[in-house]
């Protein structure tokens, strides 16, 4: 029983991290229709910057902030600098995903050659331990959960209540119709890159904080979980992505405490594979099947 409870506790923490990571991915994917496999690389970069700033004497919060800002810049740079020019050349969806793999390889291994492919341990203290009826959380865990709840609630509200948020949903549904409304779709797409980068950074930084370490493969190795969530939840659906993240994480962690811990990835990927085979459009479906790259 206590094993089950602690599994759920771990599940909530990793669910908090996964939901932020997958929301950034799904927003960007829903908008541009490009399967951006360089996303994990940006997560790694954000975590690494956080580490470097933290190690040079700043508090972990300042460091995390700088890391997230870097993730936003890096995401925009990948979107603008690489994916957009390729899309304008008329590459199809599949080739665009391939381009992002190239970006990911370059990024990951540049990081590897700079960091000597080593694992870096964070130095900040995990803080006090709190107990809630069997669940155990450290201060770091609680901060991660709080950041996740606040940011997910904020993006969900923003997408429904703000002009830019609704414009993002509108452009993602139909860019040409959005233009006919006078929405400057190019600016909206850029805003989406930035928001996607924000969540990507939050995901990467909190992932490293919960691991207490960072290495060059961290983000890309995490990508399968994100893909599983995004495809199961349906591309572009933020609320479902958060929900599925939580469910998937709890399932994996509970399975882990009962001895299947080395099969974490296998569980996540088996779920993804089953979804791809049974309902490639995701549980909660898309309203239109987009077949075009829109950047």
């Amino acid at each position, binding site marked *: 029983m206590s094993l089950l409870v602690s599994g759920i506790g771990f599940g909530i923490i990793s669910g908090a991290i996964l939901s932020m990571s997958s929301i950034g991915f799904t927003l960007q994917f829903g908008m541009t229709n490009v399967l951006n496999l360089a996303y994990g690389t940006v997560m790694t970069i954000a975590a690494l910057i956080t580490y470097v700033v933290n190690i040079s004497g700043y508090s972990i919060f300042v460091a995390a902030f700088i890391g997230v800002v870097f993730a936003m810049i890096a995401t925009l740079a990948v979107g603008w600098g690489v994916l957009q020019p390729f*899309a*304008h050349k008329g590459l199809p*969806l*599949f080739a665009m995903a391939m381009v992002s793999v190239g970006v990911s390889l*370059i990024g990951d291994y540049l990081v590897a*050659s700079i960091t000597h492919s080593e694992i870096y341990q964070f130095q900040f203290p995990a803080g006090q331990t709190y107990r809630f009826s069997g669940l155990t959380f450290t201060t770091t865990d609680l901060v991660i959960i709080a950041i996740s709840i606040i940011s997910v609630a904020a993006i969900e509200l923003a997408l429904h209540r703000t002009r830019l948020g609704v414009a993002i949903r509108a452009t993602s549904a139909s860019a040409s119709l959005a233009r006919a409304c006078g929405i400057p*779709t190019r600016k909206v797409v850029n805003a989406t890159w930035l928001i996607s980068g924000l969540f990507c950074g939050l995901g990467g930084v909190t992932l490293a904080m919960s691991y207490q370490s960072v290495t060059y493969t961290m983000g890309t190795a995490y990508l399968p979980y994100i893909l599983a969530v995004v495809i199961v939840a349906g591309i572009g659906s933020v609320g479902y992505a958060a929900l599925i993240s939580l469910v998937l994480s709890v399932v994996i962690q509970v399975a882990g405490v009962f001895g299947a811990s080395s099969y974490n990835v296998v569980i996540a990927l088996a779920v993804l*594979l089953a979804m791809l085979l049974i309902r490639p459009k995701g549980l909660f479906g898309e309203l239109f099947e987009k077949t075009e790259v*829109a950047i």
Partner: protein
Amino acid sequence: MEYYISTVLVYLAVYALGAWALNLQFGLGGIVNFAFIVFEAVGAYVAGVMSLGSSGASLGITYIWGAKLPFPLPLLAGAVAGGLVALVIGPATMRKMRRDYQAAAMLVVAIILNQVVTNAKGIFNGAEGLAGVPSPLSQYFSASTYPWLYVIWGLFLMLIVYLFLQRLGRSPFGRTLRAIRDDEAAAVALGKNPWATRMTVFVIGGVIGGLAGGLLMEYIGAWGTSAWGYQETFVLVVAVVFGGIGNQRGALIGAALVGVILLQLTLFLPPVGYPGLINSLQWVVIGAAWLVVLWFRPDGILPERAFLGLSRKGRLDFRRGASGSAGEMDQRGEKAVSVG
């Protein structure tokens, strides 16, 4: 030094076999097989356990199906195993879906299998994998001549596979395969069975992949899960696209450039910086080269020939048209239109 050259040549044969098999599946058949490295892995493992003898006999490593078969049976067993694996994962992953999703599904299959083999030590000894696999017939030759004989053996297999695939690609079978790739619905309307045709080349590719894996295993003698990460498939995809999708000679050039020059020759460079720097940088170079190829020559160095009929008289009209090149990497007509 001589040993280096012969090793590089064996690697060339292995990469070329892999690139051709992938070219058959991906270039001619349009199957986005990102699980290809699994075929090579199975071929290597099976060839290994078929040469190592029964599990308990060796130095504390555990695996299934141990046997000590004479040359060339372990290699053949590896090839057959590759085909069988294709037969199993083919039906599951070749459903009708978006091509980038199919790529993701294949990738996922590759990662799952790798993880399972890594974690379940009983199958092929987990992450450490097999070691000490004897090279076939090596006891009859001196250590200096054997590598060269192995090179000749590898080049011989290459030649056989090349001629076989060339024959297949230029036959009506190959033509039907390319037709299904270009427009599945239209091919169906002409009475072609896309599923059966694709499945055939998926299995043939599996056999050749298994052969390549076995060939490498019997030369280097060791094989673990780190040798077949999904990135290794990516090397072959890069090689095929680099050389020219749908063109065998192009795939050979790609395999030589990417597989051998970038990945293997760097092993013999004098050490620069800290150990492992070159290893990381070569992936950066591959990634960058990949983007350069996609940008400048999406059809590769030697693009596919449009005409493969019997009568070869007359010039081939092969201009790169406005609709050609980039848009054709995707065959389902998912034309990318950039907006915004």
